[in-house]
């Protein structure tokens, strides 16, 4: 589309078509700006904010409408990162200073996530971190992490600060993070020991490829699977790696432990070899609470690195078969024998990162988190092309990628048939709270167990496969049409009911000024602004149409809601009738099929 436009422009202007790289970039930049103009209506602004933030507000809709997409994006790219760890550290410090037990558990990590996504100015960065947290998955549903909210907060802060950086750096950051090390057992993974029948753990080797980078099958640049046999009907997928490659990566990912271990003092063969410093390496001093331990918030380190004895438990010996693909740097994808743990890791991550699958694979996953469950191959291809080259020859620039996702013509034009996605449960709650300026009286957010009503809470998925699979197809019409519907995987009877009820609780009970709350201080929606419209049902519905349905409410729905609101009167509902009008308008909108499916 843009190419056609650019070529057309050049023909009109009589330019000869052989621009150098710089000229081409300039032209593309112009084309980009052209596509990025807008929004032209507040409804368009609202839709964009639904995709790029944790929910539109009236203020932000106005602001975006005035400043335009590009200025807004640039502001977001420059915004200071809201972090989680300082909040948890502060709670720990307060408890220590007061001589109190440290009651800092996973609910506090949930709390600071909510606070950041509800009130942080770095909305797009937080939204990107949220997306990344569902791809580069760690979860507190894990024995090693459940009691350790600080290391998970540190991990999440890494996703947020790397949200607009390079994916190669992010991949290394998460690979060496102690949380990930424990979650996918690369931590203390050790080299082959034939005598003890020990061989390297393959967990991380497998998942970094399957989930974090290239996926199971070879992809075309537009994300469709490569057909291994064009002569046969249907697509014969081609595996992107096999067991030899997993075994190769498993060997690379050996020898790493906390950065805080005492180093080896003798070679492995020596009687005075201090293996116990590997086996029982502390993450920090005994005198300090484990949640403050430096080992949990510093990158893993090869045990023995920098000593005369080398990386003791790294499998340096033997060559390792890594990924082999067109243009691979390592000859035939083979990492030669030798090398240090760190150098081999660098080579292996480069080998993964430069695989041609990464762009289309990651682009599709990110598109699904931002705009649509079913992007066209062309959309995936355009974003993947930006992943491959941000316009300045850089591969893996996530800032360029997220811009491409949001500014793509498929994201900015009205959604095609069956475009868009089912809203994630967490986003349904944040959208309500942001639109209604919700807060608790003391400023705390007691929302530590959202998975109980939404089957989703930040970094609390049941497995490394996230809350739902990118390829999940709801049985029935959705599957028959060949559509992917990830969020439907957790839209079970139980969670339809619970989430509808929870939104009910947040609308009908947890409102600012409700005397029945007593000492209970949940996050409360502020109904006062909209109470002013209680006697103007059409305006009230139009406001929620803008905030929640991006101006696309059907006439049928509008009329049903207006009739319903008009039917609530002092006579049949008592003195709270105006509030009931607002509450019913909210709840009925937020549980309506038109809202639940974001288009």
């Amino acid at each position: 589309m843009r190419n056609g436009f650019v070529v057309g422009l050049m023909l009109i202007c009589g330019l000869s078509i052989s621009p150098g790289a710089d000229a081409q970039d300039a032209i593309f930049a112009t084309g980009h700006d052209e596509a990025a103009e807008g929004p032209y209506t507040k409804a368009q602004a609202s839709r964009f904010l639904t995709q790029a933030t944790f929910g539109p507000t009236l203020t932000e809709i106005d602001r975006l409408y005035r400043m335009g997409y590009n200025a807004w994006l640039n502001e977001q790219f420059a915004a200071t990162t809201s972090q989680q760890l300082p909040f948890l550290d502060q709670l720990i410090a307060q408890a220590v200073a007061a001589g109190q037990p440290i009651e800092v558990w996973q609910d506090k990590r949930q709390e600071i996530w909510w606070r950041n996504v509800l009130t942080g100015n770095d909305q797009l960065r937080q939204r990107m971190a949220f997306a990344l947290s569902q791809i580069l998955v760690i979860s507190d549903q894990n024995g090693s992490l459940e009691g350790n909210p600080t290391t998970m907060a540190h991990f999440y802060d890494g996703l947020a600060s790397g949200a607009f950086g390079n994916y190669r750096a992010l991949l290394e950051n998460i690979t060496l993070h102690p949380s990930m090390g424990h979650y996918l057992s690369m931590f203390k993974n050790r080299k082959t020991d034939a005598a003890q029948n020990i061989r390297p753990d393959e967990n991380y080797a497998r998942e970094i490829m399957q989930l974090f980078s290239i996926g199971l099958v070879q992809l075309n640049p537009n994300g469709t699977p490569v057909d291994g046999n064009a002569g046969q009907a249907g697509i014969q997928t081609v595996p992107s790696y096999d067991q030899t490659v997993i075994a190769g990566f498993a060997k690379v990912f050996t020898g790493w432990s906390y950065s805080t271990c005492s180093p080896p003092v003798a070679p492995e063969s020596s009687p005075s070899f201090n293996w116990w410093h590997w086996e029982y390496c502390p993450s920090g001093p005994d005198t300090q609470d484990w949640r403050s331990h430096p080992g949990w918030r510093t990158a893993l380190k090869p045990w023995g690195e920098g000593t005369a004895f080398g990386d003791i438990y790294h499998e340096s010996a033997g060559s390792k078969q890594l990924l082999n693909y067109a243009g691979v740097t390592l000859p035939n994808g083979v990492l030669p024998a030798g090398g240090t743990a760190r150098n081999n890791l660098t080579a292996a991550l480069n080998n993964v990162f430069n695989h041609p699958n990464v762009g289309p694979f990651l682009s599709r996953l990110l598109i699904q988190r931002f705009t649509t469950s079913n992007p066209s191959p062309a959309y995936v291809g355009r974003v993947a092309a930006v992943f491959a080259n941000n316009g300045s020859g850089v591969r893996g620039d996530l800032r360029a990628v997220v811009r491409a996702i949001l500014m793509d013509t498929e994201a900015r034009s009205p959604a095609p048939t069956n475009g868009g996605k089912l809203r994630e449960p967490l986003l349904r709650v944040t959208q309500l709270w942001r639109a209604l300026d919700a807060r608790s009286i003391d400023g705390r957010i007691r929302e530590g167990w959202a998975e109980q009503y939404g089957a989703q809470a930040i970094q609390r998925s049941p497995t490394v496969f996230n809350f739902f699979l990118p390829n999940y197809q709801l049985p029935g019409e959705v599957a028959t049409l060949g559509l992917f519907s990830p969020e439907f995987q957790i839209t079970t009877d139980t969670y339809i009911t619970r989430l509808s009820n929870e939104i009910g609780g947040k609308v009908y009970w947890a409102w600012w000024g409700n005397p029945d709350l007593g000492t209970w201080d949940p996050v409360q929606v502020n109904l006062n602004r909209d109470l002013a419209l209680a006697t103007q049902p059409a305006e009230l519905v139009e406001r929620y149409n803008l905030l929640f349905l991006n101006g696309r409410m059907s006439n049928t729905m509008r009329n049903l809601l207006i009739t319903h609101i008009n039917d609530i009167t002092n006579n049949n509902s008592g003195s709270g009738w105006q509030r009931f009008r607002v509450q019913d308008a909210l709840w009925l909108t937020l549980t309506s099929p038109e809202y639940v499916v974001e288009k």
Partner: protein
Amino acid sequence: MSILRRREFLHKTLCAAAGSAAFTSMFAKMELAQAATTGGIRRLEGDDYRALVCIYLYGGNDCFNMVVPRDAGHATYLATRGSLAVPQNQLLAINPTSGPSNGGQYGLHPVMTGARDMFEAGRMAIVANAGPLVRPTNKTLYQQAGTLLPAQLFSHSDQSVLWQTPRADSSARTGWGGRLADIFASTNPNQVLSMNVSLDGENVFQAGVSVSPYFMSSDGVEQIWPINTNGANCNGPEGWNRRRCLTFQALQTQTYGHAFERAYVNKTQATIATSAQVAAAIANYPSNDAVFQPFWTRNGLTWSATNPPELPRLAQQLLMIARVIRARGASQLNMQRQLFFAAIGGFDTHDNQLADHPGLLRDLSQSVQAFYDVLNSPTFALGSSVTTFTASEFGRTLTNNGDGTDHGWGGHHLVWGNAVNGRRIFGRMPNLQANNNPDDTGWGGQIIPTISADQYAATLATWYGLSDIDRADIFPNLQFMTGPMMAISGPNLGFMT
């Protein structure tokens, strides 16, 4: 009407009547009328209740520490397993009347007293070394290029799907339980509640082409309170929600242009109808009824009608299943065929296996024993009508990664119930040596299955009432599971009476 003809009829009627709102009820009535007049469908005669309960062990159960050699073979096991091995003198001896086919004496993990007792009482069987296969496979074939193998062996998500479909040749997302329900659901007099009930949310096993499973939790059923009037059609006695309920329903019943909107509406409507019905039924059988005591006592907890201690996760799920089963009667849920899914996680023991694995096996062993105590009580008398079985994406590697095991392939499975040919081990036990193991893939003791997941599932489905003709439809790869590479050749492993 034979099943085949009934299915043809079903197919034609479906095509003819697609879109007709009256279709469901019309068909249900025809089905009942037909059953009443011809008696042609064996499974509808009398009070012939049958249920299958799948217990899914998420993560890949290390079955090689669950069923362990207790004879001279223990030395090989010990040499391979090293620090992870269960000591020989701690194993709970089992004395099968037959099997395994290659001999040897075996014991169960020391925490599994309930499973040991049920095995010895003839109410549990062990199925050795089962897993997904496309064709019979051995080490030579595995290592040869061109052999048909299940896609993405050793991957959690994929092998989990293959266990549940089981279509190792395909990426289909319907499970054999779902396909069974596509056939059998119409035989339930109750056409509102799905034949398939999950206590652990989404699973492939119960997803059919036309049947979607109903999800509840071990806490029971919840209803959407802002529209709940405690009655159908927004017209129950609690009228203060009536107007909101009517508007909610009016918004639901519009014609929607987006497939996701239509799907959301369908799911919401099914939820509302079903939850009302199930809630009313199970309320008659509260969990503090003394008949459910074994769930506490078998788990070493003290039962109390007023303030019972919290049960292990699987016990909670099986207790709720028992309550639903108890409400099966004609005046309540009116179900004749049901298929339940329960699940516990945590079996992916890459680390800390010695600390983490026994607690999971204990919950499995003791909670299922309690379930059968309850089912065999006079109140239920359903021990022969309910069969319970395990599934798990893979067995684990024989070898030790330091403090755990990694992803394997074949594994042992347990089947419980009075209808089981119990006190037997079906199939062949694999070689457990670490090196040059003829039964592994060549990779650290990933054992090649000698029974296919298709055979295992088909044996259960046949007991459930599946005809030979339909069996070939549901398990298309079953026909290939013959010959000397299979521990048991053919479509029926024989572990069900």
